[in-house]
């Protein structure tokens, strides 16, 4: 029945746009270091834009279907039985695991007000219906050698595979309960205020976005492994400190220096908060803890240029400083109320060379100087090639 409903939903979406054809965009192509050392793609996010007339003359009206699918790595961050934080001293097993995922969003957006750029709206409001499938397994290299027999979900004792956490109810990671597969639907609404001139190697202005995602347990088609509300607020500030234009082609630059700051605040409420909603991301292995209030900030200075024969082919060096804090009640703790204030921090340098906005060659070195829950500081470096757009 569920399969039939989803199929009918898909067909309904497709029949509503029969007349004119539609556009298609790839937003992001991602890699995972465990798969081909991060060279080949493991997931992609793309979007179909349905042809829509602009409801307000000159302001954009968008109806689109977005898909994000593939494979990703995650870390178990809380003990499944009681939701207590897995700090360094409280686990002795590999925490990483693999997730196959598929997320879709059917969204409508309407722009209002003019900016300095003709194609951009000052204020955009949007509403979307979302769904997300996930299926979790052990990490890719599980069972590939004598040192790879222990998994996050399984352990080998005397050569016999047994469940590491036999409970069928996983309070600390609700989306991993039972067969470790889930499907959750949600409704999202929000707005974007955009006064940011983004010229690839030059940025000036400010952009603020805010959205609210509601995903109670009773949402249609949901498997009941998630129940949450998240308010996500993001402020971006950018200032071009210096730029030198190419004399023969003024749209290209020889050299530019841009200062950026991006601060994100998330408020999360709910008793079953899946991993894809939790915490916040900063550089390094340690994400911000799964708390009700999460703040992350990245301050960066980027040196671009020169642009080589094309706006989207250029080298960049970026110096960054990441800071995060988890405040308030720890989520997914069941009936236990635990309040914390935990900070994380890191800094580093990234050198990259972008070719046509598709291929990126990069070298990155960073230092996590403040790990969550007394995780030690460490330095990591990466070198590789990724593809994306």
């Amino acid at each position, binding site marked *: 029945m569920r399969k039939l409903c989803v199929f009918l939903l898909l067909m309904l979406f497709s029949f509503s746009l029969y007349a004119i054809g539609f556009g298609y965009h790839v937003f992001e192509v991602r890699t995972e270091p465990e798969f081909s050392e991060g060279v080949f793609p493991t997931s992609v996010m793309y979007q179909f834009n349905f042809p829509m007339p602009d409801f307000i003359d000159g302001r954009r009206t968008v109806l689109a279907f977005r898909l994000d*699918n593939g494979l990703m790595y995650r870390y178990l961050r809380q003990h499944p039985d009681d939701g207590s934080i897995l700090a360094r001293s409280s686990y002795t097993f590999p925490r990483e695991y693999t997730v196959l995922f598929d997320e879709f969003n059917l969204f409508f957006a309407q722009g209002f007000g003019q900016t300095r750029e003709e194609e951009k709206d000052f204020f955009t409001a949007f509403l979307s219906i979302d769904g997300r499938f996930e299926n979790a397994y052990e990490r890719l290299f599980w*069972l590939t050698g004598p*040192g790879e027999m222990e998994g996050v979900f399984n352990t080998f004792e005397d050569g016999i*595979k047994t469940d590491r956490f036999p409970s069928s109810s996983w309070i600390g990671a609700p989306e991993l309960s039972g067969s470790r597969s889930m499907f959750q639907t949600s409704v999202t609404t929000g707005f974007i205020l955009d006064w940011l001139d983004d010229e690839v190697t030059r940025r000036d202005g400010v952009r603020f976005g805010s959205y609210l995602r509601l995903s109670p347990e009773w949402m249609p088609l949901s498997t009941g492994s998630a129940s949450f509300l998240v308010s996500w607020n993001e402020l971006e500030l950018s200032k071009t400190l210096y730029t030198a234009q190419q004399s023969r082609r003024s749209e290209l630059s020889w050299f530019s220096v841009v200062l950026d700051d991006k601060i994100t605040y998330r408020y999360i409420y709910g008793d079953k908060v899946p991993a894809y909603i939790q915490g916040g991301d900063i550089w390094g292995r340690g994400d911000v803890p799964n708390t009700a209030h999460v703040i992350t900030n990245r301050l960066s200075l980027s040196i671009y240029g020169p642009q080589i024969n094309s706006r989207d082919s250029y080298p960049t060096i970026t110096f960054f400083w990441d800071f995060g804090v988890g405040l308030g009640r720890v989520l997914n703790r069941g009936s236990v109320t635990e309040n914390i204030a935990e900070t994380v921090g890191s800094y580093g340098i990234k050198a990259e060379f972008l070719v046509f906005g598709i291929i990126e060659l990069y070298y990155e070195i960073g230092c996590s100087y403040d790990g969550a829950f007394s995780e030690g500081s460490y330095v990591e470096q990466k070198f590789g090639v990724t593809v994306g757009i």
Partner: protein
Amino acid sequence: MQRRLAAIAIVLVLLLFPAAADSYSLSAYISGVSSGVDNIGFGLFPIGTTFGFERLFALVPGQRDAEFQFEMSFAFNNSTIDERFDYVTGMPIWMDEDISALSGTYFNPRAYIDIYLDQGFGDNPLYDDGSLVNLRLGFNARYSMALERVDLSKSGNSDPPLFVDDSGHLKPPFDGSLPAYPWLEGNRSVYTDYLYLDAYLNLDRDTPTDAEAEHGLGLDLSFVYGPKWLFNSISGTQSDFWRFGIYLEEKMELFTVYQDNGWNWVNMYVGHSNTFRYTGGATVPVNMLPEDRLRAILSDRIWIHFTAPQFLAGDCFAFIELNLYNTLMFGGVANGPSSFSIELQSSFSARIQVRLFGFIRLEYQVGYDFIRGIWPEYPDWWQNAALSFYVSV
């Protein structure tokens, strides 16, 4: 590191061509999806995807724009070991019934990157915007892993691992050399690549939506080269092969009845094609193995194609295609003995496809295999159905 350098070096060399261009356009497309293991997304939503980017730019003065394409693909689902070949000698079961066969299913995450540059020359007499001859130079790199089935990690599953024992050591025969299955040796993380060169002769009409009747002649000469020195021996020799192919196709429109708006009510055409391919080399990677592993393939196809009325939009239509295939396979066995073997396959198939709005394809096929040569499968009916999505903008 070696494979990174290989990918980076070749990507950069091919990127020099569009980098030298003054102007170009970009388009993106997506095609081919798979729903992965355990039918994630109820089997309807994609977990594997093929997508790419195309750029057109002026390369040769006085000729049409060259096309630069960068295509990527990934898929995360299971594969099954072909049990018909001895894992050491590569001997097929029809040459020796007493073979040492491997069997089992494994998780096979894999991805590839394909890059090519295509330049047309001259004018196609049947299509104003087409070239008479196209030359295409490309590079294909593939990465795959052979891992234990992912359902082994599920609670309550007590199936033994396929590749390792309870202590994690490789089980026989995976602890030794597997010449017939090199991708299952060692740590089973495999990188392979090859270069290819295609030459097309185009004497046929353009059919932008596939709803139009096809008409004309096409010839394709191809050469694929994946030697071991091209970074194909990073973890043992995983590829050392070459392939030559020739494909000739002739189509003739029988009739077309048009609607007032220029769409088709119905049309019909017949076609005929011949293919010859020969695969040489000591080690052929799994994605380039010829059917039944016999090195030479000569096939003949005759088909008749009937298109039903276009409705709602230009790219909404259905077609029925009746095919008769005769395929002769012969020569030595790839990744196996050089002794001669020969096989004839004959089959008939009926293919019905409904296309909606350019991106939904519903397909049903039914067929009958008359002859399966020396491979002891009896004449049999078969059928399959598929729903797929395809977008090209």
